[in-house]
């Protein structure tokens, strides 16, 4: 069960997001999260949408922009050790289909959340801050950049 036995991929993290069905699973996961939150009786619909957006963005931030390296040993002697999962995607090539999809999807969720919160000011501020937390690290200009040394080592 070592990396690369049945394929020659050095870092499987680069290809996971390109697999068949991963986008559908992601969309279904977000939908499931929303339905679960809707089932909680004390939350109103605007609160549920804001919570969906915030939880989704928090999860995306953690798994794509905070976690670095690979969960298994790779034969490249740890070259990807300091890279986030987003930076490992497609070997760092920008504007691939996966990068476009995962950049647009939080924006779409943000639009939906804004619509269903009827553009309330408090919800708007929370949703916008949450969106920026996952959109700014995805910018091509910030590939490998660590502002103020955040998440540098």
């Amino acid at each position, binding site marked *: *069960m*070592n*990396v*690369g*036995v*049945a*394929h*020659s*991929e050095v870092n*499987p993290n680069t*290809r*996971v997001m390109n*697999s*068949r*069905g*991963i986008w*559908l*699973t992601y969309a*279904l*996961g977000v939908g499931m999260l929303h339905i679960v939150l809707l089932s909680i009786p004390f939350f109103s619909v605007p609160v549920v949408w804001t919570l969906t957006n915030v939880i989704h963005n928090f999860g995306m931030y953690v798994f794509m922009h905070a*976690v*670095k*390296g*690979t*969960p*298994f*040993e790779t034969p490249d002697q*740890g070259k990807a*050790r300091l890279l986030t999962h987003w930076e490992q995607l497609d070997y760092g090539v920008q504007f691939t289909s996966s990068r476009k999809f995962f950049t647009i999807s939080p924006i779409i969720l943000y639009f939906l959340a804004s619509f269903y919160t009827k553009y309330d000011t408090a919800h708007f501020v929370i949703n916008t801050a949450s969106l920026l937390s996952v959109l700014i690290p995805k910018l091509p200009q910030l590939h490998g950049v660590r502002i103020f040394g955040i998440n540098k080592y």
Partner: protein
Amino acid sequence: MIRTEELHSCNGTLKSRSGQKQTENYTLKNGYHKNEKVQKNGNGFHQPRVRGEDSFEEAPMYVAVLTYMGYGIVILFGYFRDFLRAVGLEKCHQAQEREEQKDFVPLYQDFENFYKRNLYMRVRDNWNRPICSLPGPVFDLMERVSDDYNWTFRLTGRTIENVINMGSYNYLGFAENNVDFLKTVAEKTRQYGVGVCSTRQELGNFSIHEELEHLVADFLGVESAMAFGMGFATNSMNIPALVGKGCLILSDELNHTSLILGARLSGATIRVFKHNNMQSLEKLLKEAICSGQPRTHRSWKKILIMVEGIYSMEGSLVRLPEIIALKKKYKAYLYLDEAHSIGAVGPTGRGVTEHFGVDPKEIDVLMGTFTKSFGATGGYIAGKKELVDYLRCHSHSAVYATAMSPPVVEQIIRAIKCIMGVDGTTEGQRRVRQLAENTHYFRSRLKEMGFIIYGNKDSPVIPLLLYQPGKVGAFSRAMLKRKIGVVVVGFPATTITEARARFCVSAAHTRDMLNKVLQSLDELGDYIRVKFSRHRRPYRPELYNVTNFGLDS
């Protein structure tokens, strides 16, 4: 009388192959053949061969979604378990650095062990099972149990006997205790000793090594051959001697680690084409010819295409006629790794060159191993005499590695003579035919049952797709309960959705063994629901015995 005819036929095959020219294949401009048939002139022994297509059926989309959800759940549980270990609620079984060293830079990256301690550990009883007998068609396993969820094992002292071995690369069944075979091996051991403490270039060149190399060259139908004591090193130590800086290597996506290591050690530029995708290969060749080397745009010194005969985890066969057409069109070299395919495909076991009816002289470097079909160790490189003579002087294995052990050499010589028929028997050819028959039978029955299997219909490597990670462990454990040993593979060894069980059919498997395996697979496939194929079930062909109808129930 029958024996004499067989011998004559075998010798005639060899003679006609080297003596006569190939019929010119009609090739379209883009390198593809006008028809699928590849013919051979002169000898009626070979029929026109239709190349069977590789099958790579995809499972329905819901299977992929469930696979990702399964991985997501186990990853979240892994994080939860890491949290429990951090706060001390769960015991940490693995090695840790001492508390006094916590201010130093850590020796290991903790996250790189995440997969191993949280996902692999719970299922690792399915791998690395100790055996205690010869790995023939059946073998014995040591029974081991775990009291702490696979962190440690203990042996109970009992053995699981007569487990059907579907995991070894024992294609022709030469992993056996055959008294007649081992007699001459014992004689050579007494004559030469068990080891050679020198390299081929120095005092380690015995006459038995020379005999083996002549025999391999005759077997393959090429001018010359050279044998090496280690199969992996045949690739990793000889590719750096063939290509270097300023050369280009076009490597198939699924090439073996030894090929990849050899390519990296060579210092040449490596580009990867899609698996068995001739459009992808031709695109890379065109770009290499037109653009040349990066930045300077000078011509490449050499372009080497590296492919395998049978891909060991995919079961697919190389598209050899198409690659040879591309090689000729773009003036590239071809390195063919027949580690699995030599002995395992072809009407007389001479590999994919015979399977496709291709002249072996058209392939620049023929590589193979003795570790699979011949029941030995080591590998060979064969081709033109100038190539082999060059490798004798420049190969890292020839200069630094010890020569092959003489009893191993004799085992290989016996096996090759058996396959060629020059030992006076037809046992070798019987095994080659038996392997082809077992392969076709096993593959067609698995397809009938509704499993998704990969690879070519003539390939004895049969990956059975399981997809979901939870089913990998369930499948392997349930098969061992039924006394069948299988090899299972999952992510990150494969891509994330293609976990599989890999069956290797052997000529030594009897029909009863295969029927038992097939019956167990049928029951287990329904039980854990891994029959994902959407093809229509065919009517039962006339080929099979009527007595097998009882397996339907």
